[in-house]
């Protein structure tokens, strides 16, 4: 596992840029590139994860020094196609691609009633005809990116920016990056994911990334939102909050959609607050050094108290957002960099 990302140094920007480019040619990076796409964290081998983290670490050091374009992927065109609303993920991908020097097409189809997936292959075909090199797609249907693959030519990469309840790999990677930044390796760490596990692609991508890295992942949800057979993903399930939080190194809170009450999946939001809302006193069950993550957007006062969300001694929420850019830069660079850099 890669060691804790090192803090700011006085390395000249030019040599950081060189190291950043070189990091795209390690064995792990090449192996990741051979996969062509980023559909989920379950597809990533250890050395590929290491490689992504290493490249993201360098990207973070670079953008802390300068927000100027690196002019690395100047001949590449990247499209973001969002069939579902997003603010942070989309702007994060956009910024990451532009910082690398790629041109970006943003396609926003979230406002229309297109949710049934009939047109996603048509949309992809249009973008490919326009000459894009990568399609970054978000869609409400699980498997929406897998569905594209049979019609994608070999020079185009598909990056999953969230498909239904299935996966959100760059969120998983940025959560890992953030936890490693704070606490080094996640191996042996207890990580509790709390909330609507059933409908969460963030939970799934985190579980698939963290379990193979040796983290002790616990999943806590109301009984109706703890999906059948979750133990087979290598996590320890809970319906009670206390044993999930006990001695935890990290707690990942998930967004609790208010419509789950209307759907009859929870008794009420107040009941949810009573049993599962995270606050300062409940966080005391975890380790004193516990840190809190949340993929956003927060339903303030439902899954966590505003005081906890805003307490920067515990909450890593803003750091997660910042880290989204270097992590997505890493994914884009590793997938799109030419085989030999000129």
């Amino acid at each position: 596992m890669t060691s804790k990302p090192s803090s700011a140094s006085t390395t000249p920007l030019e040599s950081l840029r060189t190291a950043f480019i070189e990091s795209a040619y390690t064995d792990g990076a090449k192996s990741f590139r051979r996969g062509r796409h980023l559909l989920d964290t379950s597809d990533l081998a250890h050395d590929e994860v290491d490689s992504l983290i290493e490249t993201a670490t360098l990207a973070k050091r670079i953008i802390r020094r300068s927000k100027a374009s690196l002019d690395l992927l100047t001949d590449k065109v990247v499209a973001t196609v969002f069939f579902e609303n997003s603010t942070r993920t989309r702007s994060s991908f956009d910024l990451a691609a532009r910082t690398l020097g790629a041109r970006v097409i943003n396609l926003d189809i979230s406002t229309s009633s297109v949710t049934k997936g009939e047109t996603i292959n048509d949309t992809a075909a249009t973008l490919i005809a326009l000459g894009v090199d990568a399609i970054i797609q978000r869609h409400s249907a699980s498997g929406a990116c897998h569905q594209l693959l049979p019609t994608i030519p070999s020079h185009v990469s598909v990056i999953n920016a969230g498909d239904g309840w299935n996966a959100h790999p760059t969120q998983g990677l940025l959560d890992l990056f953030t936890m490693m930044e704070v606490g080094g390796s996640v191996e042996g760490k207890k990580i509790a994911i709390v909330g609507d596990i059933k409908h969460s692609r963030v939970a799934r991508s985190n579980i698939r990334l963290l379990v193979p890295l040796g983290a002790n992942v616990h999943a806590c949800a109301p009984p109706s939102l703890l999906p059948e057979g979750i133990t087979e993903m290598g996590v320890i399930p809970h319906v009670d909050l206390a044993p999930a939080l006990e001695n935890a190194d990290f707690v990942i809170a998930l967004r609790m959609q208010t419509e789950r009450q209307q759907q009859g999946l929870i008794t009420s939001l107040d009941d949810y607050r009573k049993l599962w809302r995270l606050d300062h006193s409940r966080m005391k069950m975890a380790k004193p050094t516990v840190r809190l993550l949340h993929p956003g957007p927060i339903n303030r006062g439902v899954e966590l108290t505003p005081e906890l969300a805003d307490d920067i001694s515990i909450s890593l929420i803003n750091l997660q957002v910042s880290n989204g850019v270097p992590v997505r830069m890493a994914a884009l660079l590793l997938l799109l960099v030419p085989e030999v850099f000129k």
Partner: protein
Amino acid sequence: MTGSILLKGGLVITPLPPGSGSTNGSSSLKRLDVRISNGVISELAEDLERHNDDTVLSVRDLYISPGFIDIHTHLRDLNESAKETIETGTRAAAAGGYTTIVAMANTDPPTDSTRILALTLDKIRTSAQVRVLPLAAVTLGLKGEQLTEMAQLAEMGAVAFSDDHTPINNLAILSRALRFAKLLDKTIISHSEDKDLSQGGCLNESHVSTRLGLEGVPSVAETASVAREIEIVRATGGRLHFAHVSTEGAVALIKRAKADGLKITAEVTPHHIRLSDDDILDFDTRFKTSPPLRSKSDQDALIAAVKEGVFDAIACDHSPHSRHEKAQSFAYAPFGIVGLETSFALVHERLVKQKLISINELIYLLTKGPAKVLGLTEPEIALGARPDVTVIDPNHTWTYQSVKGFSRSHNSPFDGTMLSGKAMATIADGRIVFQEQSRLTAK
């Protein structure tokens, strides 16, 4: 129909019900020549002499079975002719060894009126390659609310009644339907599923649905519904057939209900025998069917139930869908698998080649068993019997390629799979309707 057909050198299979201990798992075959003429099986003997006008099929060492009967086929046609028509569906049936198929009523428009049934019967007369017995819907528009004109529909030729694909959750309606069906001596075929429990689900609820992030259909959606419907049968004395049983719990309930003497029958599909949800390739919609492919333990329970004789029939639930519909995301793609052309090989490989049941027992589930479910004349290879005959090569190895098949649709998880066992010739109503590469015709 001119001339006669002579089958030379084949091995005649007598269907025997599974679980009765009558075969002890071993096959019982008789080498007999079979002549079909004048609309019946006219001669059966060890060595029949060839007549001048005979079409001779040399079937040495091949199996001769009564023609297969499928009691669960979606033939589409009408407004869904792009998926399948009575003609293409019956050609697929013939290639699979079927000489009779029962056509489901959830057509578009549904077969819920004498007008649509008349239209369907007309299309059957002009384009069916094998015998097609249409079902009529139990309720108008398959809405589960108002009963169809069951008496008139039965008189016109509806062989049974079913709202397949849209379960009747109102037990008062089901109860009345069973009473009328009893009066008309007809069976109600039930797609048993609690729609509230299964709502939104697109595959079995298990570690697989959880892994893929898709809404699951819990097995209790079927098991609980079967339990309720059994009690309605007990209360009404009607005849109910459970279509495509998929759960261990439902099997146990059906077994007990049968032991109680209720008029309950049940079928299982080849795909539920061959696959569990662990076999689903990620997001591959060819595996999406209703009821869903269940867990390995359910699959094992279904196979054990076949062996024990709990099932009366193996039925395909042949459900054609167009490519563009199945190309949608898993959650939105329609449910269904085409099966008429692969069913024999799939069940023969799993059940007979692996020595769980004898060939005679398998043939029972494809012929006599389904006939009994609907009260049809029981098919047999006997003098004077209906000339529906299927010639099988149990060892013929072939690769199923849906594009080379007869069905208009290709939605099968077995597409491209190497299979062994195949119908080599199908004779329906005294006419050769399918022959594998014409290899059997002697000069």
